[in-house]
């Protein structure tokens, strides 16, 4: 009798265990992120660190394997002029039990608009619920990239309780396959995520535990990958990623999309540095850079030369621009001689640690044609903000090559563009091109317009493109052979839906 009870109890326990295992997934996957976690509030997030958010938050859309948006929390959409109507997925709840519906989605979008940190929501006027599962977003101006923007942080949906929480930055609540385990996580070291018991698509939960390690030190991250402490992690083009590339048993994945590194001569009208107003000077600078050597030495052969803002597989990419500012010291010197500043000049350039070696290399190139570039160190995380001020006549930034080209105008071209602190006036032609680019959502139509824009920008040479590096993810051999590992298009993270552990 007692035996029977014990035995059946054991069976029941077994059954429960099996059941929960199938619902919960098994094993652990460990990812390492190179930037420190600042906040887990997607709408306060100003760029990198998305891998911390993805396990918890899902966005309305996500990018498919070809980069085109596909619905995730949405079920479909329709764009009608300035109105974007989005049908939402039904039967989704947040991990705290709150329901996901149009009202919540509208509140999310409106909060993002009010906080005004997410670039992709700048064109949004407001959002409202049409019915329980229909969301309407009203735009200020035509925006062919709005759905793309909703694939990222701009489209991430937060639970109402989370929005109300002043400590949202460490208490994320979303609809995602995993929930954040604050107690198990260690601040500044590792974030632990466990399966979301109320997830709407349980089959996609393949792990019992997901960890994101905060390893800003490139060497530490490399060692962690070598020793199996992590299964995958993201890298910039640096010595450590070069080592991964040549280490047996490790693999460096070159993801879709990438980062374009470029120099911006913000003071192109010569307010502070008169030489920058001289087209010959700007062209000389563009010709003075040995992009080949730069890519090899500073970015360890992981980069390729760049003469335009787009990547090679992008729809706006124009092969005709390739090599337009090929390294040519004689030509550069000749251009300098022809300019009004044959004896050269001096200017200041802001720097943050990760760009230090790049700028040191650029300074070396400019020195060859008589231009002295002083490198002025700034606090990490402040470069973009400082670049928006007139503190420096020039700056250097990266740009995600698969960002919609419309942002090019928003960042650099318009008189009130973000990184046009000296309010330089664009030519009529550039303005017109920027306007035309917004009038259609069809890339077939928009492509030629942006190619033309890139050509005009190349002629003006106030944006000096240097190199493109692909998104780099270092993985172990096991991860490389794991069929469930899917790298997100144009993002330095792995899609968690359906991800299973390596063994």
């Amino acid at each position, binding site marked *: 009798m007692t035996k029977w009870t014990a035995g059946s109890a054991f069976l029941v326990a077994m059954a429960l265990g099996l059941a929960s295992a199938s619902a919960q997934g098994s094993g652990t996957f460990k990812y390492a992120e190179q930037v420190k976690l600042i906040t887990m509030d997607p709408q306060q997030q100003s760029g990198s660190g998305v891998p911390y958010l993805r396990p918890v938050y899902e966005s309305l859309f996500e990018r498919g394997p070809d980069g085109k948006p596909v619905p995730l929390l949405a079920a479909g959409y329709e764009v009608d002029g300035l109105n974007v109507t989005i049908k939402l997925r039904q039967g989704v709840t947040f991990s705290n039990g709150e329901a996901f519906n149009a009202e919540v989605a509208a509140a999310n979008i409106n909060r993002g608009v009010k906080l005004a940190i997410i670039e992709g929501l700048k064109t949004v006027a407001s959002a409202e619920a049409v019915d329980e599962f229909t969301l309407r977003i009203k735009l200020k101006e035509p925006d062919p990239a709005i759905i793309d923007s909703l694939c990222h942080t701009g489209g991430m949906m937060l639970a109402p309780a989370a929005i109300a929480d002043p400590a949202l930055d460490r208490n994320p609540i979303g609809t995602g396959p995993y929930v954040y385990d604050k107690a198990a996580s260690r601040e500044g070291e590792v974030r632990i995520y466990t399966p979301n018991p109320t997830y709407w698509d349980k089959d996609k939960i393949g792990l019992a535990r997901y960890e994101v390690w905060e390893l800003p030190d490139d060497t530490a991250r490399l060692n962690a990958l070598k020793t199996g402490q992590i299964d995958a992690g993201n890298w910039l083009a640096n010595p450590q990623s070069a080592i991964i590339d040549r280490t047996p048993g490790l693999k460096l994945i070159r993801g879709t999309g990438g980062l374009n590194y470029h120099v911006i001569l913000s003071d192109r009208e010569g307010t502070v540095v008169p030489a920058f107003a001289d087209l010959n000077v700007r062209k000389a600078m563009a010709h003075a850079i040995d992009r080949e050597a730069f890519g090899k030495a500073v970015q360890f052969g992981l980069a390729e030369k760049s003469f335009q803002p787009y990547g090679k597989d992008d729809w706006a990419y124009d092969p005709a621009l390739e090599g337009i500012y090929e390294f040519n010291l004689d030509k550069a010197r000749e251009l300098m001689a022809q300019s009004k500043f044959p004896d050269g000049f001096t200017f200041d350039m802001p720097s943050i640690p990760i760009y230090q070696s790049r700028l040191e290399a650029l*300074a070396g190139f400019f020195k060859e044609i008589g231009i002295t570039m002083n490198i002025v160190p700034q606090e990490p995380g402040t470069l973009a903000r400082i670049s928006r001020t007139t503190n420096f006549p020039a700056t250097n930034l990266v740009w995600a090559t698969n960002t919609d080209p419309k942002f090019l105008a928003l960042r650099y071209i318009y008189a009130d563009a973000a990184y046009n602190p000296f309010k330089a006036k664009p030519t009529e032609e550039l303005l017109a091109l920027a306007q035309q680019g917004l009038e259609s959502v069809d890339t077939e139509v928009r492509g030629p317009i942006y190619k033309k824009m890139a050509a005009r920008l190349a002629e003006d040479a106030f944006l000096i493109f240097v190199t493109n590096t692909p998104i780099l993810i270092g993985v172990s051999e096991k991860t490389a052979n794991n069929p469930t590992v899917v790298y997100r298009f144009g993002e330095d993270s792995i899609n968690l839906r359906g991800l299973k552990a390596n063994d």
Partner: protein
Amino acid sequence: MTVQSAKEFKTARRPRRRLSASLVITVIATSVLVLLAILAIFADWIAPYDPLKQNLIEALQSPSAAHWLGTDDLGRDVLSRLIHGCRIAVIAAAEATTIAVLLGVPIGLFIGYRGGWWDWVVMRTVEAIVSIPGIMVAIVIIAILGAGLHKAMIALGILYSTSFLRLARGVVLAEREEVYVRSARVIGASDGRILLRHIFPNIAPPLIVQVTLTVGAVLLSEAGLSFIGLGVQPPDASWGTMLNTAAAFMDLNWFLAIPPGIAIIVTVLSVNLLGDVIRDAVGRGIVVGVKPQTPAARFETFASVAADSPLPPRREDEVLRVEGLQVMVSSREGNEVPIITDLSLAIAKGETLGLVGESGSGKTLTGLAILGLMGAGVRTTHGSITLNGRELSSLTEKQMEKVRGNEVAMVFQDPTTSLNPAFTVGSQIAEVLLTKKGVSKKEAWERVVELIHRVGIPRPEERARAYPHELSGGMAQRVAIARALSCNPSLLIADEPTTALDVTVQQEILDLFRDLQEEFGMAMLFVTHDLAVAADVCDRISVMYAGEMVEMAPVDALFANPRHPYTRGLLRAMPHASDRNPPLPTIRGNVPRPGFWPAGCRFSNRCDFRIAACDTRVPLVGTDRLARCVRAGELAMEVAS
């Protein structure tokens, strides 16, 4: 030649050797620093390349003919960057140290002079800063000022100013009380002049020392701060930033870390070594080389000298027997010098032999030689020591350890230093019983109390738990005696056991020795310089001079009829209660130090009775009393007459 004591001998000779060693260090360290300064000033001419000139194609190269130390991540010449780094190092050290001095010294002088609230507030602030790890203070200051060479050096300057501040304040506080400052004020000098005139010269020496300490610390801190990116900013080449770059490329080219590391180490080492030399020099005044004075009479060669003294007669109850003992000490020059020669003596059960002489005559060493505890560089070369019929020189160190304490024990001169200050007196006696007798703890403690009681200390239970510093000198000596007797030794060596004590206590201790000897029946070797003390406790007295026995006689005979001029001198120097008035005659000069003994009679250079015959070796002669003097017979008659 004026005769120097052994102590003077040491100090006179040691500095000379150290000077030569420190001279080498000084020269090397100074040359390194001069080289550093030259490289810093002429970096532009000396460096083979522009330190910022890059060549991306030639990045991360190993050392080659073109690039002696290879190239860094941007293909810049490491040697050139290293040379230019000297400039940063010099600027950093100069800047931070100057700031520290200029900030710390005036404030320290001011608060030291003013005192009161100013002093209180500033000193509490300084204490607070000092209680934070230095690098954290620097990091917080840099948080306010921002990163960069000069800002980081200001931070370090502020940090290190605290030590200059305390130094200056300390000097002012000391000097303020000095009479001459007060007198200067009376004369009417202004406060400022007092500070400048009197305090500055006194600050200078410690200030110089502190500066060298600070320079070394600044160099290390600058490198550390630059390494974590808060100091010198790239592309400027500082050794710390070079290491920062090297750290990122360790896997690809570890050699990058070597040149800047070596540069830092060599520089800091030079500064520290120079600082040590300066500190030594300031500490004891600049030492001038002293040539050793050539002794007037070189000591005779000894290897050939056989024991020429008559051996003491054998007795049945003999406890200790020493025959022809010769002890050598190795000198700094490497050769050995005799320190005790031709010493023979014997002590029987219940007998007390006094060993008398001036300090430096070798009496204490005789005691230690018996125990086999003469210390490094001293060894017995001739003779035998027999204790209870056993030849001690044939024993191993382990066996010797057994003999000590059990068969022979020693009481030392100063009880306050011969008892270990860290343990209670009782535990120190108990320890002996536990290790030597293997008794239980309880038994040991009972015996301790008993012994302490036996040596005449009231409330022994309580006193056993006292620490040495809690007891009076007399009390402590009683404890030391109790410890020596704890294992019932057959021989007790007492080395000046009353010298360090109050006169009133001396007699009590001497009485105690007599009582204990009666009770325990041990033989006693009583070492003293005081003939009166020896007369009190000894049966026979042996007088020692310059490492040899010059006279031995029963107490009464010796006092009544000394045969050696030295014994006479000692007796004359004894104060007598009866005739107080005439000043005490003393023997002129000092005992010559080992290695500088006159050939022949060693007392000859101090002796009023010296004759030509004294220049040859004089043997110890006699039967029941012995003397080592060619004129012993004459002197005996002179005294008798």
